[in-house]
């Protein structure tokens, strides 16, 4: 096990190096001179000069790369080009806001989608199954944007069931007042594809030989489904849920924009609009690191769920 972990961490190094190279080339080489980008966005010439100095733009490219690598490992990307706040402070401040919304979405989605998936897979081939699948296809096809725009207008503006937008500093106010509508709308969008996917996992397993064996043993259809099939279908389902974790930190940037939720997603969109490169660079690199850690976690989890998997 520890050999395995060691090897996996060893294997992550090239990937991480690759992500850093990608980000470096994207922003420092293709991104061009901050002076040109920031013309009109940042007033003072001194500040631009300071940025050039900080990035080492006057030095050869490998020095610039070295500066970038140092930034990554010292968690110091300097200050945002537009707000002058420290980038690390921005991330630490915004990430929990996104999580307040997204963790709930993640949990509710898992509960609802898995329950429904098992239910329709149980009744596979029936009218209910086909109807639910049809609705899912249609629901999946409609853009998230329409749900958000129409949902906000109808449920908040017209019916006044929820506040139209906003966010407060108090966690419980957020959870009870501002978060429910965004969560509801995100669930509308996320459940359909999850449901379809999980159903296919469950249905795949119901056709396996061991399910037939369980029936031949005299297990009831319920038992076959919940003890035998679901336990096997859990392997891909849990994997899928874990892999969705890194995305949670970005939150749904669309929903954060529309509902003015000051999370990481909104921060990213603003940064992109203002060409605030340090913020984007930092978030991209750290999320990639996090995603790699989650991947490792998934593999270890996989071993716990599926005894056939050998960690070599």
């Amino acid at each position: 096990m520890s050999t395995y972990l060691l090897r996996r961490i060893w294997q992550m190094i090239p990937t991480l190096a690759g992500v850093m190279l990608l980000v470096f080339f994207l922003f420092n080489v293709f991104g061009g001179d901050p002076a040109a980008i920031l013309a009109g966005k940042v007033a003072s010439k001194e500040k631009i000069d300071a940025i050039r100095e900080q990035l080492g733009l006057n030095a050869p490219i490998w020095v610039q790369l070295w500066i970038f690598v140092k930034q990554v490992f010292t968690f110091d990307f300097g200050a945002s080009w537009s707000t002058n706040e420290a980038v690390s402070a921005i991330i630490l401040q915004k990430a929990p806001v996104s999580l307040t919304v997204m963790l709930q979405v993640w949990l509710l989605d898992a509960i609802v989608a898995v329950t429904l998936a098992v239910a329709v897979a149980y009744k596979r081939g029936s009218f209910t199954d086909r109807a639910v699948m049809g609705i899912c296809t249609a629901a999946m096809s409609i853009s998230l944007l329409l749900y958000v725009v129409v949902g906000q207008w109808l449920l908040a503006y017209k019916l006044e069931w929820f506040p139209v937008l906003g966010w407060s500093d108090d966690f419980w106010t957020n959870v009870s007042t501002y978060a429910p509508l965004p969560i509801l709308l995100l669930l509308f969008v996320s459940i359909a594809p999850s449901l379809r996917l999980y159903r296919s996992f469950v249905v795949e397993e119901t056709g396996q030989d061991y399910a037939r064996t369980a029936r031949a043993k005299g297990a009831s259809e319920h038992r076959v489904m919940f003890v035998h099939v679901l336990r096997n279908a859990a392997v891909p389902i849990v994997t899928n849920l874990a892999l969705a974790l890194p995305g949670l930190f970005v939150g749904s940037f669309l929903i954060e924009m529309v509902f003015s939720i000051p999370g990481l997603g909104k921060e990213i969109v603003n940064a992109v609009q203002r060409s605030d490169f340090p913020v984007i660079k930092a978030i991209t690199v750290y999320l990639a690191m996090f995603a790699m850690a989650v991947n490792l976690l998934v593999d270890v989890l996989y071993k716990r769920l599926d005894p056939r998997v050998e960690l070599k």
Partner: protein
Amino acid sequence: MTQQQASYGFWRAAGKRLWADKLARFCMAVLVVYFLVAGAAGMGWVAKDWNEEVGVSYANPSFLGDDYPNPQGKNSIISQDVLVIDEKQKAVDPLAPYYEEIEKNAAAYEKAEVKPSWTLLLGGDKWGRDVLDKVIKAGQVSISIGLASALLAVFIGTVLGALGGYFGGKLGDLLEWFYNIFTSVPYILLVLAFAAVFGKGVSTVILVLGFVGWTGTYRLIRAEYIKQRGRDYVMAANAIGASHGRKMFVHILPNVSHLILVQLSQLVVDFIKAEVILSFLGLGVPTDSVSWGIMINEVMPELVLGKWWQLATVAVVMSTFVVSFGLFTDLLRDALDPKASRR
């Protein structure tokens, strides 16, 4: 030689299966209409003047009539009292001798300008543009972006996936490294990072979506090539003495082509949705152009004013297209891959 027997190859059999499905035929009909209209818009045959001010601001849709309560509509207009100039005034007005000339000039000018209409077929937007024309033009832009970026992504994904899956080894490792890099950053963040650097514009959106979105196709095609590479028919081709190129493209490619087609179809839908969101956030198509995303971006303040028709139009038009395309993709998958279809 023998005469052609009624023998169905894979594609004809799949086509027959697809055609036998009423829903598939309906979806295809809808899609054909959209593609024809988008094509016509692309050629400039329709919706050429989408950017012209042809109606009053927020012109009502025709079916509501022009007396629908509209703050800027006809019945709420502050009546413009026409100033009647009598002889007495003429006498004191120093401009009086030039009236005729002024009126003539004004008439000439007025002829050149189209009188904005009070109603338009599906209503007008804030600047009095025809929503119908706009939605057609926007459809052309969104659909072409979806198609072009999907083609690009599928092309990259297929070529890399085929190379990585077929050859494996060092080349395969290199491509896997590439894949790992691209997938360790959440997709949408990567799109935004690219968009931040490359700026706005239709071609940028296509390139960004294409260059970021190839990973799924790569994964699928690579896995498929690895699977097919070990199959006996490839082994037999190898025993015959077929070259690598022949094995890759003549033997294996036709056996995965149905997956590529399904993938393409799926990505068109995904990328249209992505474009809509990017444009909505102001990171996609520039605002002097139009797309479905830009239209939705405009409707938020309109809704507050009670001007729902632009939203309704774009929602119906876009959803019809995307739902038809999504259903079509599913049915296509079922027809092409009956074994893997939903049981």
